[in-house]
């Protein structure tokens, strides 16, 4: 029963950790605006944590520059299972206008499995909310899989 309660609360309290992998700061601002009174992601249980150790959803923005690559891989390795990786905006998936640059080591999928992606440059906060809601569903599913395995 306790395990089932944990399963249920998994989707209700996903904590977000945000990694800026060389983003232009546009997506970062939109991610913070999701926590403002108008959108208020906290009513769905979301909370920005300061440490990857307590994160459930890792939000990555930016085209993964060669300077941030090592830090990104290290930070992602510190997130405990079950975890969900969300790519924010066009950059992490493709490199966007920075693609082909000498200092871009993207896309993000070379380094980790991306569960949910949001397109847009930058995405609207509503789209980010929808993506995070989807990510929390995937989180609950992953937890169930982990328990059964």
């Amino acid at each position, binding site marked *: 029963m306790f395990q089932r309660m944990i399963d*249920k609360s998994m989707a*209700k*309290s996903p904590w977000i950790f945000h990694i800026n992998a060389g983003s232009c700061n546009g997506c970062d601002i939109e991610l913070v605006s999701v926590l403002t009174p108008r959108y208020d992601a906290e009513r*769905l249980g979301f909370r920005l944590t*300061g*440490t990857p*150790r*307590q994160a*459930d959803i890792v939000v990555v923005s930016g085209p993964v520059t060669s300077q941030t690559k090592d830090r990104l891989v290290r930070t992602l390795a510190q997130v405990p299972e079950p975890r969900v990786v969300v790519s924010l905006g066009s950059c992490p998936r493709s490199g966007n206008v920075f693609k082909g640059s000498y200092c871009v080591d993207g896309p993000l999928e070379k380094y980790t499995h991306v569960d949910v992606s949001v397109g847009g440059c930058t995405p609207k906060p509503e789209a980010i909310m929808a993506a995070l809601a989807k990510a929390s569903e995937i989180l609950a599913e992953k937890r169930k899989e982990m328990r059964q395995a």
Partner: protein
Amino acid sequence: MTTLLWTIFHVLVFPGLLFCVVVGLLLAGLDRKLVARMQNRVGPPLLQPWYDFLKCCGKETIIPRHARRGLFLAAPVLGFAALITAALFIPVFSYSVYSTSADLVVILYLLTVVGVSMIVGAAASGSPFAGVGLSREMVAMISYELPFVLVMLAVGRMAGVGTPLGVTFSLQAIVDWQAANGNLLFHWSMIPAALAMLFVIPCEIGMHPFDIAEAETEICEGTLAEYSGPPAGLFRLTHCVKMYVMCALFCVLFLGGISTGYAALDALVMVVLSVVLTFVTMSVPHAVCARFKVEQVFKFYWTVVAGLALISLILVWLGL
């Protein structure tokens, strides 16, 4: 046999584990909801801290390479156990279980153990962020301990005038004195001490304007930087229960005389008063203030708050 059963009941259910956890989680949920409403938001559901705790239980526990494994895992358990033990000594108005001759001192030490366990856990995790966090936690402890002790001395002197020692540290005696002579909050010489205690509560708990040790935007959650999974959940639960314990301590110290005579009703009154105190001391400053700097907290507590407590102590010692 019945005494053993009663002991188990006391420790696990009524003034102990279950009651503390339920009320603590309720207070934490209410605090988050109220802060959200004051910031014009909808806010998380009331059971959010409970969901958070359960979720932490379902996560993987990572022990960092540089951590001392045993100490790292024992620290949250130690802190939580110390806090529940402290809660046992606090009478729910007239319903007191383990009140002895000097339980105020015991509570003071046990609350320090809670803070120290956090410091020990942070030190054992071997992270530089936790190192910064623990040094800040120490500063916070030094800041609030002085006014806290002064408040306790003032209350003890006020309630213990007739006793041979002149001072009492028994919460039971303080409650009895208030039942006979009226609540301490309404004695004018004790009002500065009550104000000082109101300021001590949020810093002791580490609530927002005074959360210098866990500044998640500056130093990656500070002392909790390396904790993940159930130990992190236990630290969060300790934080929630501490809200109830500090509110209950304030109720007993300054409003101890309003007992109804029934334990269940007393508990209800205690919960209601704790909710009011949570709103006044934690939610409003959280919604209104930005985080203090480390030296600002220290200066504020050693001048303003300690000054208030000292005024009360001097007035009481002069017999006013």
